[in-house]
């Protein structure tokens, strides 16, 4: 016994979106406010600081650049997986979604290498405000990547059964996960220049 809720797989005729897609956009709006607040905090702290180190004094620009490439590629494979579903090619979907999850793990591994190098050099969040904001923002972003891996992993293995019963709804789920994943990607596109290059 459960309630009948319209517009789960078909879009609403007036708004043109499904419930889930509307919901994910609202969620992303709140995420923009979350990271927006942190970027604002960064600006306030930096403007008020007597000295502010150049990012590359502490951080490794090549590793971060590699990570940027990894994350953008994963966004690409994410779109390809959704496109494969639109073309009714489930095997291709599995391949691209698998690649997305693998690339996300690659991002976290590189992040792990970076973090351990910092700790090895004795760079900790308590050292100064620059390192504090670096660890906080990249850490929070890392948690978001982890969340994306969990969702995408679910859609890759147990959740993909839905394709055989409700294909339209499943494609909708992949699309929503994709929107989230592009957002996570976008946050990194801002983090990379702000923390490493400026």
């Amino acid at each position, binding site marked *: *016994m*459960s*309630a*009948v*809720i*319209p*517009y789960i797989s078909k879009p*609403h005729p007036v*708004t043109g979106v499904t*419930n*889930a897609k*509307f*919901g994910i956009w*609202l*969620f992303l*709006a*709140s*995420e923009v*406010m*979350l*990271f*927006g*607040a*942190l970027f604002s*905090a960064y600006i*306030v*702290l930096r403007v*008020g*600081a*007597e000295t502010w180190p150049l990012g590359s004094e502490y951080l490794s620009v090549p590793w971060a650049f590699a990570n940027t490439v990894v994350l953008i590629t994963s966004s690409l494979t994410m779109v390809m997986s959704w496109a494969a579903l639109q073309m009714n090619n489930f095997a291709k979907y599995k391949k691209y979604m698998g690649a997305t999850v693998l690339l996300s793990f690659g991002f976290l591994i590189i992040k792990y290498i970076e973090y351990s190098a910092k700790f090895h050099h004795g760079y*900790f*969040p*308590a*050292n*100064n*405000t620059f390192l*504090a*904001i670096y*660890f*906080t923002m990249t850490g*929070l972003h890392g948690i978001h990547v982890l969340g994306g891996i969990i969702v995408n992993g679910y859609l890759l293995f147990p959740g993909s059964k839905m394709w055989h019963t409700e294909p339209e709804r499943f494609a909708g789920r992949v699309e929503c996960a994709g929107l989230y994943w592009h957002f996570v990607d976008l946050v990194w596109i801002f983090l990379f220049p702000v923390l490493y290059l400026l």
Partner: protein
Amino acid sequence: MSSHHEEGFIRKYIFSTDHKVIGIQYGLGAMFFLLMGFGLMLMMRWQIAFPGKSIPIIGKFLTQDGILSPELYNQFGAMHGTIMVFLGVVPMAVGAFGNYLLPLQVGAQDMAFPKLNMASFWVFFVGGLVMLYSFLLPGGAAQSGWTSYPPLSNIAPAGQTAWLIGMVFLITSSLLGSVNIIVTAVQLRVPGLSFFRLPFLVWAQLVTSFLLLLAFPPLEAAGVLQLMDRVFGTSFFMPSGLVVSGQALEVAGGGNPLLWQHLFWFLAHPEVYVLILPALGIVAEIVVTNTRKPLYGYNTAVYAIVFLGFMSFIVWAHHMFMTGMGTAMSAFFQATTMIISIPSVIVLTVLLLTLWGASIRFTVPMLFALAFLPMFAIGGLTGLPLGLTASDIYLHDTYYVIGHFHYVVAPGTLMALMGGVYHWYPKVTGRMFNKTLGKLHFWGTLIGMNGIFAPMFFIGMAGVSRRLYDSTIYEMARSVQPLNVIMTYSSWLLAAAQVLFLINIFASLRKPKEAAADNPWEATTLEWAAPTPPLPHQNFAEPLEAYRGPYEYNTTSREFAPSTYRRPKPCQR
């Protein structure tokens, strides 16, 4: 819908996905926390009125001599604010009223995301448990005020960390809830129920949810930063060269304590409107039903609250005039604060003009709604001197501020919520409450609340600071000390009135169900078209369609007979 297999107790009442059960869960949880926050306040009020005397009966459970210690006073103060705002009023106004009524008022069978709805309640529950647990930690609960200003909060005992973790849970819960409410209100309206046919309460919940959605994340960010400060020793909010108790703190420094205040008030000012908007919506529903008239200027009121929601994001620093952030900033926020008072006045005027020319039914909920109007007006108008920089310099951080915002939230929002409980009680339970007890509750509440909060303006204008454990140590506060005693006695009256309330709503459940209780107030909105109580997971017996606006009362012209009017003779057979 024909599958009628019974759900087990746990699925039906504990981990339910039915918006009505979740709404009641929120309501009971919020009621528990409201009473708890009130209990903390009763103990603080004893100490303020009779400093250094041991609290009767319960005092010996708190401390050895029964006197509320300064540390406990600070904890109770911080937790009273936190509990009342984040665990009491918001879960009641948005969690309980929003969850229960919004799907019914738009004609939906449930919220758009029922499982997410259940998750949001249980995340709230965990947040509440963390907050309660913090009282048991060494050093006690958070004690830096509900605003948790650093650097004080950064060096406070462990309870502050629990406060931050609890807040992260509560923020997440509000976030999930607000996404659900917005999607439900926009996507699940029945055919014919266009945006300008929505009941005003739905509009109020919609705007409220946008505020929760967009204003809460910055506090989450601030909470994460303070957690980093406390757990990993960073210095986001710690300036260089900080000396505590004669000892230099061993932190890197370079942080900015004002940053916390900006992030905090960026949430906490919209939060004020989160507290008041659902109350305005509830009052509007009660007023139109009992005046038998359409809402005077419905469209104007809707545009006003949308504008109010937008403006509430650019007034936050009027809480910070005294921080030395500069005259240009202060002037800007003073101007926006004056502007935001306009839409609130518009909504209040709309409600007042609805009363004009009405033949009012003085039901119990209507008494609460009628009392709300002047109480909210007092709360709003006393806010103007605080929004103007010149007068704020004198009034800042005095009891005047406490009086102002309590008039908005306690005799304002809380009385609207109580009226709402009475108004929808017959729909939720299928029974009518006891009207005499309801009226006694109303008068006790009205007199008690005014007895508590009106003297605060005078104490505040006498210059008494809001944070004093024992204000009689100051000469100028001793002359107004008798007012503090009156306030404490009033708080007992208020407590006694709430006992009547609890007896009424729980004892009335034992009455037999009334057959004709589907629409006892003869109201027009969709929730009254549902069976009583609305069907589980379905709400309505059959699909609905809306053909009219929300408040079409007295649509036929009124009958009247002038003296010169002669009744026509009956036709001869």
